[in-house]
């Protein structure tokens, strides 16, 4: 069937099909464009880095009495800014002489370990955040009373709560049917960061339906629960996805900081701290592990973006087919 036939009400399936195909084409084109932009920015950054190194080195040689590079501009020597090729080469070098495992594999394994903490932290944060939003949207009083505390919770530095969570996890959770491990405490530390954007944005999203829509629901004699499920929650989806993206990156940060703070072995935080302490003798190793952390953050963000597209595609199809 052709597009022209779509005026016939019986061919809405064909229209949906067409829309789906169009959607997919757009998605592929966008994905390609996105990757191209990302890669070209990477190249630009690499040039900027290398260029600054060359420029800094030249200035450094020339400067005598009034140092520019190294005073208000960062140093550009190989210890401060290792050559990019050295950093790339370090990926395949084993950190231990008699152990064949290259650094890249260590970083990959550590990234998986941290991803597990971040993912658990993300989900607990999403559940907690949506729970809080749903609770607060019910009552103006509750919203006014609780909101300041939610904000205040984010001003407590992680370093203050991390040891408490770790010790609590080790001493108070032996009644659980499974063994509580330190990485789960780190996930809780990440949760502490992730619930906040979800709760705040979720609440905004639940409040987002226009008053006339809410009144319409009231005129149908819908219960608050029905209004929540049929109007408020669907309306909050775009707000929630903004929050999810924030939460995903913050979960990675929280997991890494939690590991550093609590000394949990196996993840990127521990690896970064380890190599930071030995920076003088191998700055490339730290750069590689930090690059791993950056990649993990981008991956987390990308996963959420992908899932948003998946959900949005479903909505578009529904609006066409109904």
């Amino acid at each position, binding site marked *: 069937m052709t597009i022209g036939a779509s005026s016939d009400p019986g061919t809405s399936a064909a229209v949906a099909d067409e829309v789906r195909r169009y959607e997919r084409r757009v998605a592929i084109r966008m994905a390609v464009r996105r990757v191209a932009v990302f890669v070209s920015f990477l190249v630009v950054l690499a040039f900027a880095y290398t260029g600054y190194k060359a420029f800094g080195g030249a200035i450094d040689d020339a400067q005598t009495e009034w140092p520019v590079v*190294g005073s208000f501009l960062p*140093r550009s*020597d190989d*210890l*401060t800014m290792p050559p990019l090729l050295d950093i790339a080469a370090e990926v395949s070098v084993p*950190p*231990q*002489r*008699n*152990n064949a*495992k290259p*650094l890249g594999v*260590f970083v990959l*394994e550590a990234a*998986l*370990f941290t*991803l*597990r903490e971040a*993912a*658990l932290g*993300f*989900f607990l944060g999403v559940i907690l955040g949506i729970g809080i939003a749903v609770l607060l949207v019910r009552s103006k009083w509750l919203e006014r009373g609780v909101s300041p505390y939610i904000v205040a919770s984010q001003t407590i530095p992680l*370093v203050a709560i*991390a*040891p408490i969570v*770790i*010790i609590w996890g*080790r*001493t108070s959770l032996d009644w659980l049917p499974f063994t509580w*491990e*330190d990485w789960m405490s780190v996930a809780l530390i990440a949760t502490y960061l992730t619930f906040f954007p979800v709760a705040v944005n979720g609440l905004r999203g639940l409040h987002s339906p226009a008053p006339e829509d809410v009144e319409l629901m009231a005129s149908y004699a819908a219960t608050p629960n029905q209004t929540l*499920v*049929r109007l408020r*929650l*669907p309306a909050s*989806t775009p707000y929630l996805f903004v929050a999810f993206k924030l939460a995903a990156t913050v979960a990675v940060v929280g997991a890494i900081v939690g*590991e*550093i*703070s*609590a*000394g*949990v*072995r*196996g993840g990127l935080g521990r690896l970064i*701290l380890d*190599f*930071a*302490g*030995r*920076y*003088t*003798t*191998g700055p490339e190793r730290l750069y590689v592990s930090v690059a791993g952390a950056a990649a993990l953050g981008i991956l987390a963000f990308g*996963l959420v973006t992908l*899932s948003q597209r*998946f*959900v949005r595609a*479903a*909505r578009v199809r*529904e609006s066409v087919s109904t």
Partner: protein
Amino acid sequence: MKRWTRSSSRLALVLGALAMVAAACGSTDDTTTTTAAAAPDDTTTTTAAATTTAPPEAMTDVTLQLQWFTQSQFAGYYAAVDQGFYEEVGLNVEILEGGVDIVPAVVLDSGAADFAISWVPRGLVPREEGLDITNIAQPFQRSATLQVSFKDAGITGVEDLAGRTVGNWGFGNEFELLAGLRSAGLDPETDVELVQQQFDMLALISGDIDAAQAMIYNEYAQVLETVNPDTGELYQPEDLDVINWNDVGTAMLQDAIWADEGRLASDPVYRETAVKFVEASLRGWIYCRDNPGSCVDIVLAAGPTLGESHQTWQLNEINALIWPSPLGVGIMDQALWDQTIDIATSEAILDAPPTAGAFITDIAQEAVDNLKSAGLDVIGNDWQRVDVVLVAGGD
């Protein structure tokens, strides 16, 4: 209402799928636990130094909180696990690594660990604040803290620090330096410029500071693992001047084994466990003294990103902090304790000298006696430093 249900179910599906990703990541490897290795192996140490000769049927679970990460600084404990020394005395020891914000004394007091490794001042300060802990063994008899500078700075003694930019780590790591400055008649407030230093030696090598704080077993070696851009070779000990606080006389005691004081008094089983734990730990240190190569391998296996030559250097220097132990390994030297307390009180780290029971020697003495009767050398007069060849990057 089809309109919301389908997209919402997709949302739920997405969340579910991501949750499964999380669960899948979970199946990789187990983490902090380093439990006793297989059968005890007595090929190198001739006699078994166990209080009980046959492994007892019921094993006691013990957790040890370290002050920092796996490295040769804690080699004795890792060796005791690996060589089955703990197992022989009926202990199943789990070693917990430290973290940036983990205070071993607090972890110990909370009950989240049975024993902890901590520097003496870092145990005494929380003890003064009310934590119920006590020092039961003092393996490190010397301080490892140095102030390192390049030869051309001409800092050969404490008095040469006058007018210089002096790096230190802060957070309680600076007291030997402060006391040392005062002992040379310098006022730390006005006569030197004290700056906070990172836990690497970049500031010294870049020339931002004239003298840097360094542990002889760690940061000092890092300088020697760095290529000197002027020569193209690694920096050599001859390129450096070192102020050693042991020589200046302001050294403070470092790694000690701490236990829960109240539990020792009230729980005879815990006290018995403490004796066994100290005995097997000290046996681990004796093993590392007599078998440094194998001991480094144990550390490297426990910390697979650590550099081999760096850890070999570290163990050599750690051995120098322990051996010789004239009173027997792990027994507190009263004079060094008094010196530590003197500095701690005069530098106002502590408000007052610690109350009675801040350290006890009976547990360590019992452990040492057991080791001695098993024929082990608990003093180590014959121990000598070996030459460790450092390679670039400490690899």
